[in-house]
């Protein structure tokens, strides 16, 4: 089965066509500058075999980009997908498992579109286009929040008036689930452990967003991101944890303009806000080591970034109990040994023993950077969200125990129904 996976950004569209279950990549690429015209033309960067190409073509919206991608696949490689897998950032309280898309699902998605205002709407535009242009092509939505559906009530509940939580859907959702689940499965396979007996802390450290996930018996039990992707770790431009009193103070300074505060905390804080010159923590490390830069802001940025990671790693190791592994993934987790060192050094009390030489001399993935006698394995694993989405899509469509629902407006099969009184929240600054 050839599965076309879409990973939709606000102005971009990444795609990969994978032959499943062998996971052979047949084609892939990225449409850039989708949307209203910018200073540069819209382009699709794509690969056929190992050769790279660029095609300039106007794409006013994600529907147009989708049509172009399908044309490219057909004309250049004679390829046609058998199914499509979509990455959806937020499934709210409705969706947990990979879901075959029909009219009922689209209606539910409309209800929760505001939970991830930057991410869900473009993905939905793509799904509409796909349904219209290829009504017979099965589509599966895979949710980033899905893996975190197993977070227990005592971990997802904020200590707010319960009425407020129920009415507004205020709870921890957790994000990066597709990636956490993927690297967890890779790590368990690498260690030859059954997933159902696998305990770990997964560290998805992207150059943009970052989160840690506590995993018990192969299930997510906590994630550092919360109601939105703003909570938790310090990120490239996101502040992470912040005293709510400071958020209120900022709101007062901005005369109640929550959008202004949201922009400040989401786009101008984190590594960028602290360092004052870059949003990429790798630049901070490089600047410090190359120039012995004594700029206190750089020192502070580095210290706060790694300290928060270390504290959350400790918190989640306490939650997990006997961990089999700590997993590092995504750009920073895969390529910055200083970060892994700052997190793992002096953590013998948790059973972590980092091998400094292996950590610094990492060449292949997946790799174990713990000493031989470390009770907990320290693994560096490459994430691959597109492959993960292809796997889930394939499994969903070949799962004979769960027939593919026909078009209907009724409640979709295999999705979690909201409990009475629990309405999905709307309007979050994600």
């Amino acid at each position, binding site marked *: 089965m050839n599965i076309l996976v879409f990973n939709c950004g606000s102005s971009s569209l990444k795609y990969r066509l994978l032959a499943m279950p062998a996971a052979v990549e047949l084609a892939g690429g990225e449409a850039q500058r989708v949307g209203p015209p910018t200073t540069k033309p819209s382009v699709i960067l794509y690969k056929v075999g190992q050769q790279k190409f660029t095609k300039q073509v106007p794409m006013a919206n994600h529907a147009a980009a989708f049509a172009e991608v399908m044309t490219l696949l057909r004309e250049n490689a004679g390829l046609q997908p058998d199914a499509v897998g979509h990455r959806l950032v937020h499934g709210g309280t409705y969706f947990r498992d990979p879901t075959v898309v029909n009219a009922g699902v689209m209606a539910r998605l409309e209800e929760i579109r505001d939970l991830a205002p930057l991410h869900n709407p473009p993905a939905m535009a793509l799904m509409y286009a796909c349904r219209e242009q290829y009504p017979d092509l099965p589509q599966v939505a895979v949710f980033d929040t899905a893996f975190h559906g197993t977070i227990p009530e005592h971990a997802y509940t904020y200590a707010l008036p319960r009425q407020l939580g129920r009415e507004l859907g205020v709870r921890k959702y957790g994000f990066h689930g597709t990636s956490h689940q993927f690297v967890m499965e890779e790590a368990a396979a690498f260690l030859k452990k059954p997933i159902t007996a696998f305990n770990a802390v997964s560290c998805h450290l992207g150059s943009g967003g970052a989160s840690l996930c506590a995993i018990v018996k192969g299930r997510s039990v906590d994630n550092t991101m919360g109601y939105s992707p703003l*909570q938790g770790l310090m990120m490239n431009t996101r502040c992470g944890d912040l005293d709510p009193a400071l958020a209120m103070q900022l709101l007062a300074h901005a005369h109640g303009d929550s959008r202004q*505060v949201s922009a400040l905390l989401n786009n101008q804080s984190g*590594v960028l*806000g602290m360092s004052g010159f870059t949003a990429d923590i790798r630049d901070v490390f490089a600047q410090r080591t190359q120039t012995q830069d004594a700029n206190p802001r750089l020192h502070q940025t580095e210290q706060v970034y790694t300290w928060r990671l270390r504290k959350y790693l400790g918190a989640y190791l*306490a939650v997990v109990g006997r961990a089999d592994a700590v997993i590092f993934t995504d750009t920073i987790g895969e390529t910055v040994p200083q970060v892994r060192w700052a997190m793992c050094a002096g*953590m013998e009390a948790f059973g972590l023993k980092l091998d400094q030489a292996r950590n610094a001399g990492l060449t292949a993935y997946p790799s174990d950077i713990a000493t031989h006698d470390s009770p907990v394995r320290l693994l560096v694993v490459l994430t691959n969200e597109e492959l993960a989405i292809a796997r889930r899509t394939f499994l969903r469509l070949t799962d004979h125990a769960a027939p593919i629902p026909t078009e209907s407006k009724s409640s979709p099969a295999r999705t979690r129904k909201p409990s009475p009184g629990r309405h999905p929240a709307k309007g979050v600054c994600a």
Partner: protein
Amino acid sequence: MNVLVLLPSRQRLSFCYFANGWQQPICAGQYDDYRDADGSRLALTELTRSLAEAGRAHNAPARPDVIALRGISGGADFKKPALVSPGVLRKLEKRVPFAPLHIPALVALIHAAQAAFRGVPIVLVFETGFFVDLPEREHLYAVDANLTQTVGVRRFGYHGILHAAACNHIARQRHAMGVHSPARVISICLEPRPELAAVLGHKPLMVTSGATPLEGLPGQTTSGELDPSIVLMLAQKMGWGPEQINAVLTQQSGWLGLVGRMTTLPEIFASHRPECELARKIIQYRLLQACGAGLAALSGLDALVFSGRYSGVGVSLGPWLKKHLASHRPESSITVTLCQEPVERVLAETVCAAALKLKPS
């Protein structure tokens, strides 16, 4: 030494008079509405009357040797107990913009106490003092301080008096056993606003509270840590202003919000009602996470110590936390200790010890 302890809080002024070698305080009470010059003067006038009465009844002097005054948020300027002097009052005036309600009430109280007990030294101890030297990596927020107008805003702890006493207790305990290296302590203060600190010897490395006592663990009516987006969503969806949001997060949330009525920590831990069980699980879970973070901060753990008015809960909570924290070292030698002295007595002791060394600045 006879010590009058004054504990001003947002709602009321509590006092406690320790005299006659201090078996028990010979007099204690509280006054509402003390927060301005008139209120403070009235409260102190009544207080002198109470002390005179109690002095007659217990054959003790009606005039204390020293007044111990607790402040909450003193900023980086007030690390150690300070003997109140014109210099100290000037430093306090400078802090008014950072704590516009707390500091003026404190200053009014100082003037009233000076008038009521002429010549009696007043020693001011701030709860934040213990946390002045928190490392930068722990006390900074990941924001642009200039853009957010938060220059100088940083994390503190707000139960420093009890944490300091608890860590002293652990140090003495170890000393008696011949161990002289600094202990790696997780100090859990169980008050209506609970707070957990990781302390190496006497040096705090991590604390759950933040720029204000709102951040951190859920309290009796306070939410504790939240996704900051929730604050913004409440403004946007509910149309609430900062004051309304503040009222919900500080007066209607926490254990009250979870259980649906005013309650205490011992009640939550004793009750089997489902709403109490969820609240208990949430509190235990947040504490376990904070312990894990503290353990990472300390690179190990020697002692768990509980203090505060609900420290009795530590009887069940302590072993539970220890079990979860020691899963990789079942032979682990973490000790669990309860320090159940009330804050007023701890403060009286702190001030007696400090008073001998203090000179006016």
